[in-house]
């Protein structure tokens, strides 16, 4: 088992020495410029039946609707990751044990990791009731919440895996050292292993968040008026090719503008953790 989870300094030296020091800023700017140039190019060659200025004006007119759509994406992603984190850590902790519950937990983690998200989304949308009754009160179960749950399933499975990995990558010698100081298993987990895991889990966790955010795009397929669905409605309503091109490129840019900083932040966290 690999005990040296904190990258040895030689590894850092290696990456410093051999990969070109492409600063995050440079490649990020490159990507942004790339998106904009690519988008502008597409738009430029897109056939235009009216004036391009008019198309732009239409986009501006639709901007609030698109923004509202994207706020749904963000809401769903935040909800899914919040639920997924709690469920994932619990499932991950159960999966560590050798008991039957542990086996069931491991099995369901695998199952949810292996199910296509699209299928999970259709599944929750169709199979879950639209409202449910608790203590005589009827609570609605709106579609966006179903999609949130659908995405929380793979999110929790991923986070459970990350948690399991983080625990497993805590050197066994840390367990032994704590046990030799007369800690109980639970105390080792709470006072020694978890604090070390939390730091190690943070980068992959933000990564899961970015991936789930991108997954929310699928909610358009079950009729949630998210960014993509709104973009489709807009492009059908306006019914102009150049407007369609523009909205799709805008969608791409919006997602990029949201997810890319998260992935940079993840990278930064990873580096920071490695250095320490």
């Amino acid at each position, binding site marked *: 088992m690999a005990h040296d989870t904190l990258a040895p300094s030689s590894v850092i030296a290696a990456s410093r020495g051999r990969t070109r020091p492409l600063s995050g800023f440079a490649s990020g700017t490159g990507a942004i410029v790339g998106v904009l140039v690519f988008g502008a190019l597409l738009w430029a060659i897109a056939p235009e039946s009216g004036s391009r200025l008019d198309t732009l004006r239409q986009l501006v007119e639709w901007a609030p609707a698109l923004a509202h759509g994207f706020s749904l994406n963000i809401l769903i992603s935040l909800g899914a990751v919040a639920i997924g984190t709690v469920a994932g850590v619990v499932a991950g902790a159960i999966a560590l044990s050798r008991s039957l519950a542990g086996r069931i937990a491991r099995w369901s983690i695998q199952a949810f990791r292996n199910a296509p998200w699209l299928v999970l989304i259709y599944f929750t949308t169709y199979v879950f009731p639209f409202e449910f009754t608790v203590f005589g009160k009827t609570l609605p179960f709106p579609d966006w919440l179903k999609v949130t749950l659908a995405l929380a399933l793979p999110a929790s499975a991923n986070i459970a895996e990350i948690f399991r990995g983080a625990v497993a990558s805590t050197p066994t010698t*840390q367990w*032994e050292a704590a*046990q*030799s*100081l*007369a*800690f109980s298993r639970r105390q080792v987990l709470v006072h020694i292993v978890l604090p070390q895991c939390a730091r190690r889990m943070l980068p992959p966790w933000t990564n899961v968040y970015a991936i789930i955010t991108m997954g929310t795009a699928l909610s358009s397929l079950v009729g949630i008026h998210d960014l993509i669905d709104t973009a489709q409605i807009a492009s059908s309503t306006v019914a102009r090719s150049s407007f369609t091109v523009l909205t799709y490129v805008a969608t791409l840019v919006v997602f990029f503008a949201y997810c890319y900083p998260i992935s940079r932040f993840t990278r930064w966290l990873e580096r920071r953790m490695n250095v320490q």
Partner: protein
Amino acid sequence: MNRIALASSSTLNASPARDSHTQDPLLTIRDLHLSYDGVPVLNGIDLTVKRGQAVSIIGPSGSGKSTILRCINGLVSPQRGSIDIASIDVRAQQSDAERIALRKRVGFVFQQYNLFPHLSVLDNLTIAPRRVLGKSRAEAESDAHALLAKVRLADKAHAHPGALSGGQQQRVAIARTLAMRPELILFDEVTSALDPETVGEVLNVIGELADEGQTCVLVTHEMRFAAEISDEVFFTERGVIVEHGPAAQLFGQPRHERTRLFLQRARGEDRSHPPLRAV
């Protein structure tokens, strides 16, 4: 730095009873057998440590030295034989609570220090007294400061382990074990991960402890140190104790051919190269 001189300046536990061999045994191991996945590692170990004694275990790599220590501490379970610590049968302690009670009495210092990297030095020293012994923070901290002074690291209380040199980390690890006030401390090759220049720092601290009457079992490759500090030395090979006896006898007139050979090798170039002194 002269270890003996330092030791005499220490004030804790005055007048140790190191050479009173009449005392009751603190640790008794009888006929210990252990195999990992069917591969035998210990094949009948007998070993007795009296209260206040310092005992060394030497032997070639893979001969089972670390495994013996891990059995004593209940980190692994042997298949046969008995281990008694102050009349408690270690092998009978199967529940978590029983093992914890045992480990409060037995400390363990590891080759790789195994400090908790996310805690400061002070927290490394206080976490077990507070969580396991239930001491108050104030009490645990004043204790910890005293121990840090003892291992000459008073100024490093708030550093993180990663910021310390190997020798310093190992001294923190020793202090961490001492903070639990164990009756018996097991040292497993505590200097072999250190560079030659810092080995001395750590050996001095252990020497002091032994002089103060702390019962300890040391696994070590430092023959000179073992020779000087130990009341008794055990030589293991392939999971058995080939020979044991007072340090002077075992190092001076080893009875077994194998022990002789090992000591010769351990002295290394002494034979094939002219001794350095003579250059």
